[in-house]
């Protein structure tokens, strides 16, 4: 008879000394790992819950201004430097890693309306009555007031002035990729796009309400997002301005500022309801909302260039620093931590649609004012929608045109 018994040599399974690593043989046969799906589901549930437990996004509050912070500017070469302009004309330069003010300059006597840094990082520009933005590559900058002026740094007169319409322009932004393009927001509810090479305006889109500011997507050359007074943000594709790519609706008061993440996939918006929200570009609901009892109306917001932090300047003279991912662990992670983080991320992604997990990951605490405003606005929207449906139902078919929700907010596009 031929016989062989299964016999294992313990030396191959037990470590020799205390200083060695433990030996862990692996067998990936599915019969040895029963209940894969329920166990992964429980792991995903735990990962989602822990994400909420560790969601502590507030990092620091930079104190020092003596009046409300009106504008922020990032340093193009240094991640830790940030400039802020206040309503009493003070400009402060901060170091974010030490969380201290390095320098204070009394730049103006009135509001510092606009601040921007030069692309080389050696100097910055501030303005009092107009908005300002610097070219991303060349020594040119643009200001807006009654018209959009393009200035050369060396000359005293603007190189060219562009205007369309008779109203004042509140903000101007250069496109970071197609650097000859500019966008501006005027107080007659329109957004105008200009071409610097031809020194003419290109197109304009008229919305229902005034846009406060726009921001260009740093990764997609033709996408920009407009922060509007009607509590929404509109992401437009420059080539087709008749419908917005996405309407982002989550704020309960006017949206004052918007800034893109350097990856181009998300942006942060600051609103008159004392909160800031982070939106993914492709979705109309926000993924995150940051608020504090002490933070009043948020006037300006910036996303740092390393995609990790968000700074917001508010009415009550403070600049706050937040994490972009609320539950992220900062600092250097060990390889085991990284592996666990990646695994948990993938689990949350895989099981994100299951009802319990969705409920937990979407849950955010909101201050009572915002919460009650949301309920109220929902009731108002329902009523409007119901009336529209009734109007459609009871009128002659074809007499009432059905306008899509996205197009509803756009009045006209003019070339």
């Amino acid at each position: 008879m031929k016989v062989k018994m299964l016999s294992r040599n313990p030396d191959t399974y037990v470590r020799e000394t205390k200083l060695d690593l433990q030996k862990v043989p692996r067998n990936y046969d599915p019969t040895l790992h029963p209940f894969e799906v329920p166990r992964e589901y429980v792991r995903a549930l735990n990962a989602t819950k822990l994400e909420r437990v560790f969601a502590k996004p507030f990092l620091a509050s930079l104190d020092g201004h003596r009046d409300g912070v009106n504008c922020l500017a990032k340093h193009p070469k240094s991640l830790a430097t940030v400039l802020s302009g206040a309503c009493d004309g003070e400009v402060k330069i901060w170091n974010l890693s030490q969380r201290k003010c390095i320098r204070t300059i009394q730049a103006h006597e009135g509001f510092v309306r606009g601040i921007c840094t030069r692309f080389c990082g050696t100097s910055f520009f501030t303005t009092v009555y107009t908005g300002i933005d610097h070219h991303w590559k060349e020594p040119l900058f643009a200001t807006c007031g009654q018209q959009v002026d393009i200035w050369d740094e060396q000359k005293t007169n603007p190189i060219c002035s562009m205007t369309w319409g008779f109203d004042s322009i509140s903000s101007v932004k250069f496109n970071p990729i197609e650097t000859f393009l500019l966008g501006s927001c005027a107080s007659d509810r329109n957004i105008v796009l200009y071409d610097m090479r031809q020194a003419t305006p290109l197109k304009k889109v008229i919305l229902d309400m005034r846009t406060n500011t726009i921001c260009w997507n740093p990764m997609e050359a033709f996408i920009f997002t407009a922060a509007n007074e009607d509590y929404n943000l509109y992401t437009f594709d420059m080539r087709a301005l008749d419908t917005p790519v996405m309407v982002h609706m989550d704020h309960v008061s006017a949206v004052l500022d918007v800034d893109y993440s350097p990856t181009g996939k998300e942006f942060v918006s600051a609103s008159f309801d004392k909160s800031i929200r982070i939106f993914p570009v492709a979705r109309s609901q926000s993924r995150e909302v940051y608020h504090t009892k002490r933070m009043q109306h948020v006037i300006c917001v910036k996303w740092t260039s390393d995609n990790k932090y968000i700074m917001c300047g508010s009415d009550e003279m403070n600049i706050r620093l937040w994490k972009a991912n609320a539950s992220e662990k900062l600092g250097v992670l060990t390889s085991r931590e990284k592996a666990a983080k990646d695994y948990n991320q993938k689990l949350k992604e895989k099981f994100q649609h299951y009802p319990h997990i969705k409920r937990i990951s979407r849950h955010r605490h909101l201050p009572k004012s915002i919460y009650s405003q949301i309920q109220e606005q929902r009731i108002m929207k329902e009523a409007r929608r119901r009336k529209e449906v009734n109007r459609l139902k009871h009128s002659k078919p074809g007499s009432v045109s059905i306008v899509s929700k996205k197009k509803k907010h756009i009045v006209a596009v003019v070339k």
Partner: protein
Amino acid sequence: MSRPRRTNFRPKNTHILKKSRISKKLQVPKKPRERKNPESQRSLSGAQDPFPGPAPVPVDVVQKFCRIDKSKKLPRCRSKTRNRLKVAETEEEETSVTAARSELLLAEEPGFLEGEDGEDTAKILQADIVEAVDIASAAKHFDLNLRQFGPYRVNYSRTGRHLAFGGRRGHVAALDWVTKKLMCEINVMEAVRDIRFLHSEALLAVAQNRWLYIYDNQGIELHCIRRCDRVTRLEFLPFHFLLATASETGFLTYLDVSVGKIVAALNARAGRLDVMTQNPYNAVIHLGHSNGTVSLWSPAVKEPLVKILCHRGGVRAVAVDSTGTYMATSGLDHQLKIFDLRGTYQPLRARTLPQGAGHLAFSQRGLLAAGMGDVVNIWAGHGKASLPSLEQPYLTHRLSGPVHGLQFCPFEDVLGLGHSGGITSMLVPGSAEPNFDGLESNPYRSRKQRQEWEVKALLEKVPAELICLDPRALAEVDVISLEQKKKERIERLGYDPEAKTPFQPKPKQKGRSSTASLVKRKRKVMDKEHRDKVRQSLEQQQQQQEQQQQQQHKQEKAKPMRARPSALDRFVR
């Protein structure tokens, strides 16, 4: 002096927005990577690769790692979902091939026993095997003669390293049977009906005469659970941390040992419960009844999930294999049957035994052991997890007393038997899975590894509500029904857009809201709705008629045109 121009640098973790309407650039066609012809691939020495291409992988091994059931048809879905599913399928193919290749790294081979020249393996005695095999394996065969304290029930811990046994007259002991180190030995002064290890070797559950007791592995009594009274059988569901108890009173009780709560107490309504086993694939409890049926239970459901009629007389023993495909039952009608559990619940094999089998057990590799009186028969199939053929037994063994419990040791080629003369450990070459997974159950784990494993297992404890016949039910594509869609829509909008609130006429002033005028207004609205309905149905009828006419026209046109009508036409059918 001009600086060298930097080429477009795109950081690694960015990707283009899927929704962005990228302008159509001139697509430079990518050259497909040319497969080097075997003739042209020559090394410096001029030799050719004798095995060109990637190494072949056996198809059945690749099939083992495939989890997607391609035969299931998915409902109509959007193109985005369909694309995602296609991508998932291709990924699964690749990963299953890689996993199949990783099987090369498995170190151990399973055991085997073959007779020479037509020798019947069933006639081989344990003593012969012990002689022919190495010392370490020979030491795995031992006999404990314990006649004093009654017939014994045995249980191995999940890693297979520790053995617990309990005698009918109260003798309870736990030991590490490989090193023969005794952990504890006590007498509980009461009849012991069943004994089970809980999730690790640290805790023991003993079903004593009156109540259920939990002991530490040092013999210290930790809990006495009085809600579980007169328990005859115990089963521990390791991934749910549930201890299932079957009692004489006919109740099947599930106790969560991590929290210490009774999750469900189900009345099986079939009298005394004597026969119980678990299905390790889906954690469903199989109960055998005296009317020949086997019922399948889950703690979430009050009624049995399935009831299978197995035998003419009562069912005496049930066993389910580790993959949950086969169930072996034996009854008072001296039959031993194997049923198919996935799909049809039909018997696949049947065999009449001279003496009914009172105890059954499956091993990890699909061997079936049956204890009939004081004889143990083991049947084997061909290869791992195949259906054992009940024609010829693989091994047999005669004990000194009738068998009262048997279990295959998880990762060793050993069958543990409890009988009225004590405990016997029998060698069964080829019964166990040779390669264990260190992160699931590791017989060589240290104390620290055990502690880490216990914490992780507790964190991923599956809730009892998820026990059902198909453990992969959570991963199925959710086919949302029309009613569910309607409910979600109502939730989302806040009101039901299709709800017909009965028309309430607005009360008017100046005598215009008398009863008669209210009734008239109501009638007006009702008539309008009625007219709409009639109009709709008329339109539908018209459309149907038009369609029918069109079809008729088409049919007529399809008929071949006759040349000339003749007098004999009236005879054509």
